[in-house]
């Protein structure tokens, strides 16, 4: 019986193998398959500050203003706008053709609650709302914002690309309490989110919004025309860097939004792959806990900052020279506010000066707790090298490894280290976060109400207040410089260097990526 079965069995196996052979690359030119920079879990870009959720937001929502690649603000949903001579009243008129994905028109009844909801969650939005006297809808397309105190960053706030951007949502959605997630993902942006095809951890699907009316200007940053040339975009969630690279090389996906650093050399050398960098460089920073000893003493904070060796840290983390550079400014190097006036900070180690400062400050040798997120491959080499640098600078260091969620929980603790507190951790930021001192969450000096580390620096808060109030670009530059000096003088935090995030695409297949402060996915063509 067995002998009779063998021949058909072998024939069946061969037939199966033949029919399955040759895995074809993704050749559908109307479907863009890309790997986003992280797994998209939360779909409400106001509720969370996660970068990938912000990227999702830019797919399906629009903003009143956008910012181009140079950082200049341009109207997006707005057609015309004006302000009173004293800057206390602003009038905005929406452009024609704006419609929600369900076909209903976008009106001021949607815009005002959207701004209010955003303003309850976002740091700059909170400052703006605190300065606002009232929002008024003049008619369906025109609304005003009247301020009760000067607010010099209206356009910057309304075009803000850093998390959270002020996305405009339908009134019914925007009326969701700010401490709850939305569940309706209707937007007015260039893509429509396919909720029925959403599989968290697997795939996110967007289709072209055929009714979207893009602006006529060329796309630049989050401004200009948001033209869509594909019918469908699929975000394929691939967590492993090697798997991402394999899928791209084999043509199963068309682009990797953020190329894993360890795959950079392999992909760059592959003739079928093209490496692009549409997004400005990100950066990393060492953050200190100023609430508890020893970094409640600015001199000791300065000593820690003096121990930094930017080149060693960046090389350890990113390895390939194409992926990093040093930059001592707290702002992205080459950006509007960046300068090389960084007080004592050179980015190079100054161990003897650090030791002298420690002695002067009376550092008693208590070990400082440096948290290391051992599972976070984009960060987990920094603390190891930093621990050694700090030791060379005269510190006693307790390097404590934990996973990223544990680090996030521990950094919220204000207790002394012997009761579970912390002294130092390292994290990364996008250029959209650091390009403006008011966008940058760690830039706080209001003690326990501020960001983790809880620095108490009234001078910093005063400088920020002046920056917020002025509309004079020259004065703003001076204030930005003063803020940078104060950051180093107080020892608030220190930049460790910049990283270039490459987007890898199939050469000759994908084109049209827009240079932008954040990842955007319109204008992309697939050949």
């Amino acid at each position, binding site marked *: 019986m067995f002998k009779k079965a063998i021949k058909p069995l072998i024939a069946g196996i061969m037939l199966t193998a033949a029919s399955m052979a040759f*895995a074809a690359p993704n050749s559908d030119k109307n479907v863009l398959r890309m790997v986003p920079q992280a797994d998209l879990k939360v779909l409400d870009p106001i509720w969370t*500050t996660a970068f990938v959720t912000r990227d999702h937001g830019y797919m399906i929502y629009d903003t009143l203003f956008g910012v181009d690649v140079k950082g200049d603000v341009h109207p997006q949903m707005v057609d015309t706008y004006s302000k009173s001579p004293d800057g206390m009243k602003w009038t905005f008129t929406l452009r024609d053709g704006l419609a929600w994905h369900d076909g209903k028109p976008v009106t001021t009844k949607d815009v005002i609650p959207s701004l209010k909801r955003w303003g309850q969650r976002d740091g700059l939005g909170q400052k703006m709302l605190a300065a606002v006297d009232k929002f008024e809808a003049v008619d369906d397309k025109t609304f005003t914002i009247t301020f009760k105190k000067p607010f010099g960053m209206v356009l910057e706030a309304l075009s803000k690309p850093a*998390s959270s951007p002020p996305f405009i949502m339908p009134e019914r959605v925007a009326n969701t309490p700010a401490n709850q997630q939305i569940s309706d993902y209707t937007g007015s942006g260039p893509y429509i989110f396919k909720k029925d095809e959403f599989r968290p951890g697997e795939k996110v699907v967007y289709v072209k919004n055929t009714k979207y009316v893009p602006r006529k200007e060329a796309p630049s940053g989050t401004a200009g025309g948001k033209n869509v040339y594909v019918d469908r975009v699929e975000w394929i969630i691939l967590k492993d860097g090697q798997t991402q690279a394999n899928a791209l090389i084999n043509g199963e996906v068309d682009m990797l939004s953020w190329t894993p650093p360890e795959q950079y050399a392999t992909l760059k050398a592959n003739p079928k792959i093209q490496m692009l960098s549409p997004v400005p460089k990100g950066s990393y920073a060492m953050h200190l806990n100023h609430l508890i000893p020893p970094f409640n003493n600015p001199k000791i904070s300065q000593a820690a900052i003096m121990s930094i060796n930017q080149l060693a840290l960046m090389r350890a983390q990113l390895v390939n020279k194409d992926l990093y550079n040093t930059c001592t400014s707290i702002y992205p190097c080459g950006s509007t506010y960046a300068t090389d006036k960084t007080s004592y900070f050179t980015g190079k180690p100054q161990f003897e000066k650090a030791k002298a400062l420690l002695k002067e400050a009376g550092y008693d040798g208590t070990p400082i707790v440096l948290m290391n997120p051992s599972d976070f491959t984009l960060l987990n080499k920094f603390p190891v090298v930093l621990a050694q640098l700090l030791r060379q600078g005269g510190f006693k260091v307790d390097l404590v490894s934990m996973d990223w969620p544990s680090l996030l929980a521990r950094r919220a603790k204000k207790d002394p280290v012997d009761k579970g507190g912390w002294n130092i951790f390292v994290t990364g930021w996008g250029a959209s976060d650091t390009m403006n001192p008011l966008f940058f969450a760690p830039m706080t000096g209001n003690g326990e109400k501020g960001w*983790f580390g809880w620095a108490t620096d009234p001078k910093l808060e005063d400088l920020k207040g002046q920056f917020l109030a002025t509309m004079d670009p020259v004065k703003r530059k001076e204030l930005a410089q003063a803020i940078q000096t104060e950051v180093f003088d107080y020892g608030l935090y220190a930049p460790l260097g910049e990283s270039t995030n490459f987007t890898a695409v199939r050469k000759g297949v994908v084109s049209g990526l827009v240079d932008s402060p954040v990842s955007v996915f319109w204008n992309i063509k697939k050949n």
Partner: protein
Amino acid sequence: MFVLLARRILATVPVLVIVALIVFLMLRLAPGDPAAVIVGNSGTSADIARVRAQLGLDASLPVQFAHWVGQLAHGNLGESYFMKMKVTDLIAQRIEPTVSLSALTLVITILLAIPLGVVAAWRHGGWLDRLLMGFSVLGFSIPSFVIGYLMIWAFALHWHWFPTQGYVRFNDGFWGWLHHLVLPAITLSIIYVALIARVTRAAVAEALTEDYIRTARAKGVSELRVLLRHALANAAIPIATVIGIGVALLIGGVVVTETVFAIPGLGQLTVDAVLSRDFPLIQAITLFFSVIYVIINLLVDLSYLVLDPRVRY
């Protein structure tokens, strides 16, 4: 048998209660805070406190436990903190890939491991036995992700016979579904073939020393029939036990292979939930696995009735 079934079902209840209590306590006492993960890097302590209050995490542990048990009593396993979806829906999305991968792995494993083990036992001590057992040691020594990457390099990147990653739902086409599962299933099956081949070899080798084997041979029964109908049949119980353990591990613990091949299965869901401290999801998955393990153990015990008519419950 009905008494066995009833006893097992009743015994499941205290098991689930203990599992529920342990996982609940472990999650809340271990480091990590879902609220901190939710607010993200730019949030503040006030944001975390607000989210904790919203999620009910600022209540005392007994209150939180009572709330959860109350939900369970109404058949509500809760909603993911992050994805605003019912955890039952999230688990349901992941069951098909996991079951598909496990089933295909099991088929490959059984088709390869049992014949290999029988042959090795038949030629016990000979060069064939040593060769097969040497391969089996290699099989469970090499990490599955190494095997996976090698398979991808050869069969996907080099020869383009299979895709490097991904999963196609069964409803989207049988051949696409099968095509995407072949490489990960072969990768996973290597370690199970190694394990089950060794157990089969040991059990069959022992059975071959029994008197009834000598009797069968003396009566002129063919060697193939001696091996399959007499030796293997009597060695089936330990083999079935190990296969049962293997199935349980396949359902819950193949996260490395799932990651390498981007199979959206329960293993990845579990790891993602743990790394983001998605308490409702972790609790639900743990309870789900507990039920699965109880069912698998029961099926293995029931299989003894089929495999060995001498067994009675």
